[in-house]
């Protein structure tokens, strides 16, 4: 046994004893063989405890064969490459692998949290809802941090993930999920009929449990048949074969997500840049579910001790990895399949103390084989309890008692010495994917489990997933499904035939009683991962949680990352017995995606960092960058926020830019402004419908500010629209609203006013557009050499001109968002940078300075101009912001007109836009600060409005703000209180126009 007591001298189909592999488990160096899993290698090293449980911190070991593993969750890798909560029997061993046990502190063998187990009578099912309720303040500072530390599973990785991930998209005629016997048969039949087939399996190899099951195909071992089929499919041109690939979810119209672990097992590939995981989005015309079945544990006292595992898992360890689960075991079963485990153990030289079968009698082929092998069978008995060593870390024997269904406590029991138990409570078809998209289930009394019923998608279950446990029938079902999935598929001759011995029916056992009452040191675990016991479920019933969905949420049974794979049916069985109902009467809880957890990296794929979101840049972006501009995101745009000079902080540079506009002249890159051309004979009438104010009366060559509402009467956009010709307008929208408003206009044209002849064309990116604003703006323009009249009379406020500035072709609008004399100059985008540079040179002698978006905002706030999204929040009408004058009384109809008349929009007490001047001119209110009717010692206080924009105005040398305040316009001069964390700020209500109320500065 070469110093590894649990590694058998021979056997282990998958391991290569010539290739030693080194790895660490909790820092301890261990060795295994190529072909091992973390579960088999760690067990071979004599380490049984893999982690501590979620709630009681009980020691736990390996239970399952594969993805159903609920106990042995390990963290793999270190630092940024650490991945928590991986199922040890699924993790393939490789050289240098680092595994960590989870949920234990300070160590696996001594865990402080295990005290919870001693306190368990005080933490029954639903205890979260019963305790920690008082005193209230304790929840946030004491209870919650304590629970979060004690509970939970793995830890999140530290740092940014260095690996790459991919998204893939695929279409196929037939997707076969699961490459066991039935799945392979289905794939073979579908590919032979010419279908495009994808077949995937979550394990690294094909065959499912063909190597662990009884029966032959075409008179030869099942594995021979598997190998020829695997070869045939791999060579076929119309089949895509995927291993290490889990189908994690099924959604409408046969949309499936496949999670492929490409290089978790291959660190060298990973180092070469192979993606770590791929997430496949597959559209399949037909889905064939060949996901097999999972073995059920049995609820006996302390059935969670390390060394107690499923019979298939024990068989897998011996047959696949040459690892003994222990020195001497018992098999505890209610069906024939587990007898194969006893035979495997015996063949491998592991002592079997006996097969404890709850069924009476021993008249079956399985029993004959066992007897012939010299294994004792103890019929009509069940395990009543286990004997374990200090802290439950080891197992020394089982107590068995005669089994009578529904009996209370056990009185006469005997003892068998053993150090492991292989248990089997029957098999549940894996119906998770069947249920993800609304498939119905039907209860099968032979299996004592649910199997697929009806489904509205083109999906079919075959083999064990369909409840067909007989080998020959499963094979035939696979072939038939593969043929049926292809349109003209017909049964073909020459199909393989399988043979296996008939099995005795199982006898359900949902609960095996112990000596004494439930909570006297005995726990019958149903949901191992969430630490839910049979007693918890019965308690929930007694407390009135009659619906199984309520019981699930109250006790958290079936809610862990394993989604109830092994616990669901056992829980239903316990509930059925507790209520005297049948399992179908109890119902079943919903299985939800994912089947097994998959990585965040695979969800993100390559869409991270620079690829996360496209960034839009204006033609002037490089200049901004060269000036060391601070950027801010506006929609997908990056706009220059301010341009700090050497030695300036952001506040200083913003104030300098504002004063430059007020006193000299400033230049703003406004290219991001949304621009939409509206053209056609009905353009004017259409604009009358979508704006609150009139546009059909606008003269060619003039601009008008417009307000846009939705049908609810709430503001959604604003901007200046220019009439370029009789049937041709240019609409400006907010920078962030350009796409949304273009789509909005299209929707109304296409769906409501279909008679209008109008084209809507977004042209935002076609133009570079700059604002030249300030008292010297006209002088700068003059210097640029316009070929049109720019005098105050010849180019009035709200007029538009087309022409040339020197050699630069421009459209130029005399509009202002700063309150200063201002020209917005537009030129084709590819000429933008040239014009920008020309304006800067022409303006140099006037002290022109570029200003950013923050200066723009302060300038507009000084003038009381609203910004959609600051002063409006989707519930604000034109009247609320004092723009009633822009709502036409003449037009028969426009979007939102009727809603403005609704009583709740006309009622008193609405919030109205006002200005605020703080008592202390240096005190800048925070954005969103609430005004209260009366200040109290602590909340709640009645709130009467909130700050919508707030800045320090260097022009006025005073803090200014705008706010929406209940009946604000009738409260001018009132002082309001704004309670903040550390103080109360007082501010006086004023008109929202703080500067140049007459508007004389822009009309020069």
């Amino acid at each position: 046994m070469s110093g590894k007591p649990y590694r058998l001298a021979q056997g282990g189909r998958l391991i290569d004893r010539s290739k030693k592999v080194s790895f660490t488990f909790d820092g301890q160096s261990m060795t295994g063989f190529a072909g091992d899993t973390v579960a088999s290698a760690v067990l071979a090293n004599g380490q049984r405890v893999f982690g501590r449980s979620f709630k009681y911190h009980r020691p736990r070991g390996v239970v399952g064969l594969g993805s159903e593993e609920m106990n042995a969750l390990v963290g793999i890798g270190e630092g940024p490459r650490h991945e928590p909560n991986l199922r040890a029997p699924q993790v393939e061993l490789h050289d240098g692998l680092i595994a960590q046990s989870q949920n234990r502190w300070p160590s696996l063998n001594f865990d402080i949290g295990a005290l919870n187990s001693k306190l368990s009578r005080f933490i029954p099912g639903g205890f979260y809802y019963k305790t920690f309720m008082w005193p209230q303040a304790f929840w946030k500072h004491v209870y919650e941090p304590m629970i979060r530390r004690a509970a939970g599973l793995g830890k999140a990785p530290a740092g940014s993930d260095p690996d790459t991930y991919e998204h893939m998209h695929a279409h196929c005629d037939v997707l076969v999920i699961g490459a066991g016997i039935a799945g392979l048969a289905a794939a073979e039949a579908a590919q032979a009929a010419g279908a495009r087939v994808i077949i995937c399996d979550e394990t690294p190899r094909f065959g499912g449990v063909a190597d662990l099951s009884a029966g032959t195909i075409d008179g030869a071992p099942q594995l021979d048949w598997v190998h020829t089929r695997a070869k045939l499919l791999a060579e076929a041109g119309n089949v895509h074969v995927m291993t290490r690939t889990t189908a994690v979810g099924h959604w409408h119209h046969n949309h499936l997500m496949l999670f492929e672990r490409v290089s978790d097992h291959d660190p060298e590939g990973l180092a070469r840049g192979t993606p770590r995981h791929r997430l496949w989005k597959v559209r399949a015309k037909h889905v064939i579910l060949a996901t097999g079945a999972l073995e059920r544990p049995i609820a006996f006292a302390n059935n969670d001790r390390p060394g107690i595992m499923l019979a298939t898992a024990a068989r897998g360890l011996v047959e696949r990895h040459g690892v003994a689960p222990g020195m001497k075991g018992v098999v505890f079963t209610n069906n024939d399949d587990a007898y194969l485990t006893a035979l495997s153990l015996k063949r491998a030289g592991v002592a079997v103390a006996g097969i404890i079968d709850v069924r009476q009698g021993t008249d079956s082929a399985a029993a004959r084989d066992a007897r012939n092998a010299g294994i004792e069978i103890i019929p009509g008995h069940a395990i009543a309890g286990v004997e374990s060593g200090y802290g439950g870390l080891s197992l020394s024997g089982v107590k068995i008692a005669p089994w009578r269904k529904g009996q209370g406590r056990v009185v006469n029991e005997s003892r068998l010495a053993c150090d492991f138990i292989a248990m089997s409570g029957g098999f549940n078809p894996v119906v998770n994917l069947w249920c993800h998209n609304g498939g119905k289930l039907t209860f099968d009394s032979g299996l004592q489990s649910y199997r697929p019923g009806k489904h509205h998608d083109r999906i079919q279950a075959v083999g064990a997933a369909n409840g067909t446990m007989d080998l020959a029938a499963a094979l035939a079902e696979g072939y038939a499904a593969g043929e049926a999935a292809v349109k003209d598929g017909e049964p073909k001759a020459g199909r393989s035939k399988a043979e296996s011995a008939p099995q005795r029916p199982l006898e359900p056992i949902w609960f095996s009683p112990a000596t004494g009452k439930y909570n006297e040191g005995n726990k019958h675990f149903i949901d191992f991962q969430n630490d839910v016991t049979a007693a918890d479920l019965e308690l929930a019933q007694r407390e009135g949680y009659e619906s199984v969905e309520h019981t699930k949420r109250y006790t958290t049974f079936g809610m862990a990352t394993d989604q109830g794979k092994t616990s669901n049916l056992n829980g239903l069985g316990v509930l059925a017995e507790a209520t005297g109902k049948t399992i179908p009467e109890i119902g079943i809880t919903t299985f939800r995606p994912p089947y097994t957890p998959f990585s965040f990296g695979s969800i993100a794929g390559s869409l991270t960092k620079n690829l996360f979101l496209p960034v839009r840049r204006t033609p002037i972006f490089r200049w901004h960058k060269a000036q060391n501009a601070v950027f801010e995101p506006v929609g997908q745009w990056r706009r220059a926020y301010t341009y700090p000079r050497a030695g300036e902080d952001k506040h200083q540079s913003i104030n300098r830019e504002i004063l430059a506009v007020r006193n000299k002249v400033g230049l703003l890159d406004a290219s991001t402004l949304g621009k939409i051309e509206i053209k056609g004979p009905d353009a004017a009438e259409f604009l009358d419908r979508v704006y609150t104010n009139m546009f059909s009366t606008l003269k060619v060559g003039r601009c008008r500010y417009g307000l846009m509402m939705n049908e609810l009467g709430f503001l959604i956009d604003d901007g200046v629209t220019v009439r370029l010709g009789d049937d041709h307008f240019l609409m400006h929208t907010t920078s962030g609203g350009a796409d949304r408003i273009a789509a909005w206009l299209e929707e109304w044209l296409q769906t409501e006013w279909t008679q209008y002849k109008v084209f809507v064309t977004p042209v935002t990116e076609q133009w570079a557009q700059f604002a030249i604003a300030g008292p010297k703006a006209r002088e700068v323009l003059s210097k640029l050499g316009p070929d049109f009249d720019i005098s105050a009379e010849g180019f009035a406020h709200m007029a538009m001109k087309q022409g040339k500035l020197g050699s630069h072709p421009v459209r130029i609008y005399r509009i202002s968002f700063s309150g200063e004399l201002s020209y917005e100059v537009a030129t084709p985008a590819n000429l933008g940078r040239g014009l920008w540079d020309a304006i800067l040179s022409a303006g140099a002698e006037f002290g022109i300075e570029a200003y950013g978006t923050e200066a723009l905002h302060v300038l507009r706030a000084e003038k009381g101009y609203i910004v959609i999204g600051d002063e409006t929040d989707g519930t604000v009408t034109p009247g609320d912001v004092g723009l009633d004058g822009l709502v036409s009384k003449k037009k028969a109809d426009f979007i939102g007109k009727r809603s403005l008349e609704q009583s709740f929009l006309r009622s008193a007490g609405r919030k109205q836009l006002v200005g605020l001047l703080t008592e202390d001119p240096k005190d800048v209110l925070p954005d969103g600060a609430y005004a209260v009717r009366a200040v109290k010692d602590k909340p709640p206080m009645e709130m009467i409005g909130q700050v919508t924009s707030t800045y320090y105005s260097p022009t006025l040398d005073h803090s200014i703000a705008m706010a929406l305040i209940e009946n604000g316009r009738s409260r001018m001069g009132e002082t309001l209180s704004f309670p903040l964390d550390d103080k109360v700020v007082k501010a006086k209500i004023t008109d929202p126009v703080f500067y140049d109320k007459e508007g004389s500065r822009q009309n020069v």
Partner: protein
Amino acid sequence: MLIVHCPVCGAEGDETDFHYGGEAHIRRPATQDPTTVSDAAQRDYLFMRRNPKGLHFERWRCDRGCGKWFHAVRDTVTMDFKATYGITELPPRELMEAASGEWAAFFKDKLDAAKPSRKGKSS
């Protein structure tokens, strides 16, 4: 995730390539004359939507294809699209006959008068 078929340009794609536009065949009362629309009628137009088990008449936009709005009939139980048809068109006759609630009322006079829609394409 649904697969949607655009009857205008023929594109077929995931629902994320399209934009869902809610219940179809809702008449906007204000287009004729807002002053004649009662508060109740306006409320119903703005907020009251149907959620039937079975046929649902709805609007979609071919977002990443032709950009056109169109109509679709979807079975809310099976998620099958029974038909998609143009935004100014009516569904196939048998679907109009199978419609419930306000849709049935909307289609009733159309069924009496009109011939079955020619362009309504079953998918």
